[in-house]
């Protein structure tokens, strides 16, 4: 287990170095002159903004919650040899459905409204993941392309629904009414809502599903060797659809959690990068639930601390994206890391990826 973490840890370390170099190089723009100490200031602020106080830690957890859930969504797809780039769209549809039901159930007590809104989000995500799964299984339309397209369809659906039928009254811009009864209760600090618990519970559940259940065994077998799975009596077609749907379900839950727990409404032009960050989380976590938990916490901490970094060090929050991309780069080009550190650690590669790309050009339906 520890050995699995060596390469990711080194990739993170290298990314921090690269980030520092970028900051130093751009320090004249930040400070007016070259400032070698800028990275220290920035990383210090990042750290204290994410772990420096109880509020900071809670904020880290809040930021990590959707990343972990959506990261699990992408990760479970990887396990089945599927690349779900559509976590973004499923996240949005989950958020939209949760908001719609959340607004509609304003008259109900929270004990009824919250589960209903969550259920709606989960169901919407499930359905939105089902579509590309079905298309892949029966027509061979590759999930990478269909999910990218569905991400943009989701944006338009939200724009339509929220600027039309669901538009709230007396709001300054196109958004739904504020969710009241279905809002997730805050348990700790300023914004530590109960959704954090969902993510923390989802990790062992998905781990159990993948590694302790027969369904998970089937999912993993299809991802590792679809032919062997077929001979062993599994049904790759059904499993493809089911995995995509479960993946969508998790992403939908992530969306519902954010809308019900943090945002409190959904705007017509809802901008988020969670679905894409989730890919980074799943890759960094090697698509293992526990790895995803840590990767989600790391990226959540970066998001949480980035505000303070901008205030204290003048480093724009987009530095977080740069760091994420560079981490992924070093994970992917792990030969660089191996060369630099002369390590013979276990590869961080996700072996099921082979199943994914090899099918891109064939356009073949699942057998």
């Amino acid at each position: 287990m520890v050995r699995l973490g060596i390469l990711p840890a080194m990739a993170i370390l290298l990314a921090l170095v690269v980030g520092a170099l970028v900051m130093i190089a751009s320090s004249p723009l930040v400070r007016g002159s070259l400032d070698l100490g800028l990275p220290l200031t920035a990383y210090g602020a990042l750290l204290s903004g994410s772990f420096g106080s109880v509020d900071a830690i809670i904020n880290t957890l809040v930021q990590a919650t959707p990343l972990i859930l959506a990261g699990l969504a992408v990760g479970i797809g990887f396990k089945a040899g599927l690349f779900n780039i559509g976590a973004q769209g499923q996240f949005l549809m989950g958020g939209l459905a949760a908001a719609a039901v959340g607004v509609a159930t304003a008259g109900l007590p929270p004990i009824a409204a919250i589960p209903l809104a969550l259920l709606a989000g989960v169901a919407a995500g499930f359905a939105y993941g089902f579509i590309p799964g079905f298309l892949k299984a029966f027509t061979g339309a590759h999930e990478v392309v269909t999910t990218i397209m569905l991400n943009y369809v989701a944006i338009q659906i939200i724009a339509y629904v929220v600027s039309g039928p669901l538009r709230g009254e007396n709001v300054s811009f196109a958004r739904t009414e504020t969710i009241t009864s279905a809002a997730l209760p805050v348990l700790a600090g300023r914004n530590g809502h109960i959704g954090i618990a969902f993510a923390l519970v989802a990790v062992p559940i998905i781990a159990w599903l993948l590694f302790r259940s027969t369904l998970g065994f089937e999912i993993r077998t299809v991802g590792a060797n679809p032919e062997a799975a077929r001979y062993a009596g599994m049904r790759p077609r059904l499993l493809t659809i089911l995995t995509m749907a479960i993946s969508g379900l998790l992403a939908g839950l992530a969306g519902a959690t954010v809308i019900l727990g943090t945002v409190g409404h959904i705007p017509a032009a809802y901008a988020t990068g969670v679905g894409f960050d989730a890919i980074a989380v799943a890759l960094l976590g090697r698509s293992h639930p526990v790895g995803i938990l840590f990767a989600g916490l790391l990226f959540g901490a970066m998001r949480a601390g980035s505000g303070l970094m901008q205030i204290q060090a003048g480093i724009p929050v987009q530095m977080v994206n740069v760091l994420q991309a560079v981490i992924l780069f070093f994970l992917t080009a792990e030969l660089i890391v191996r060369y630099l550190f002369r390590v013979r650690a276990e590869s961080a590669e996700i072996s099921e990826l082979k199943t994914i790309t090899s099918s891109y050009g064939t356009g073949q339906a699942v057998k």
Partner: protein
Amino acid sequence: MIELLYDIPILGFLFQFVGYLIEVLPIIAPTIIGAATPIALGAMCGFMNERSGVVNIGIEGMMLTAAFVAWWVASLTAQVLPGDPIGPMGMSPALLVGLVAAIAAAMLVSLVHAWLSITVRADQIISGVIINIFAVGITGYLNLLISRSAPPSAGQFRAWDAPAFLADIPVVGWLFDALLSQGPIGLSLLVAVIVMQVLLFRSRWGLRTRAVGEHPEAAETVGIDVIALRYRNVILGGVFAGLAGAYLTIEFGNSFQGEMTNGRGFIALAALIFGRWTPLGSFGAALLFTASEGIQRAVRFGPPEGALGDFLSSVPSQFYSALPYLITIIILAGVVGRSIAPAADGRPYSREKREKRAKASA
């Protein structure tokens, strides 16, 4: 007479719609073409990649990087070099330097994509994801830092004054006018589409590219260097992503905003698929995609009369926006006219299997 056609049930609706299109297309054509240009250029980048067997979902990031670099470098240059145009279409030194820098930047990003996809043989989709995340980060980061000092804009390219006689051609003159009344990048797209289409099917480069994208092993056995050809094509593809990005910040507009590509790189991917991996096809697809938004705008400002107008006005504008994506899914699923990727698309090629093993034991 025409009224008669319009009165036919259902079909008459269609006739009315066609009549409406004929009426409004000349008016909205410049908007459609302007919006289609970056998408078609992005698709050309994808074309260069995928025809040689490398999937590229990082077009969006490449475009965004180029958009930023074009604007930034042009702005920096404008502060040192005189801003007066030295050529037609408002070609000032600053804009030209910006354009070259944008192309170079996109080629550099393409080189990274090529290295990860071809040499490292990493998953090509992940490589694209990395590029997209990085582009959002680095351009957003630098943009915020730079805009603190509010740098001057270097302006933008101007449209070419198309010869009047072309615009005066009856029936299709408006089309010539709309296509040719563009800046240098828009015009370069027209040239590129035609040239690349011809090259793909008529030149040695095109033949070899198609062979490598379909069956690299067969190409290798007749002595074609698969790895080199893929590298070259992927890097050259960067030129188009560079043009696409630069178009947004120094031709269509004159400023940069974070994440301003706004999904155009992904529509480019859709256009590529819809256009069946050909330059002409993707250009057509890009036009079709943006036409749906153009028509939506036309309907908003001047809907046709009668029931058709009511119907068109009642279709939500978001439906028009989503249409390109929906069409792509339908095409890909083969419901109507299946579109199939080059057979070796996304599959890293390895000579190793044969040669390295042989050499290791030699």
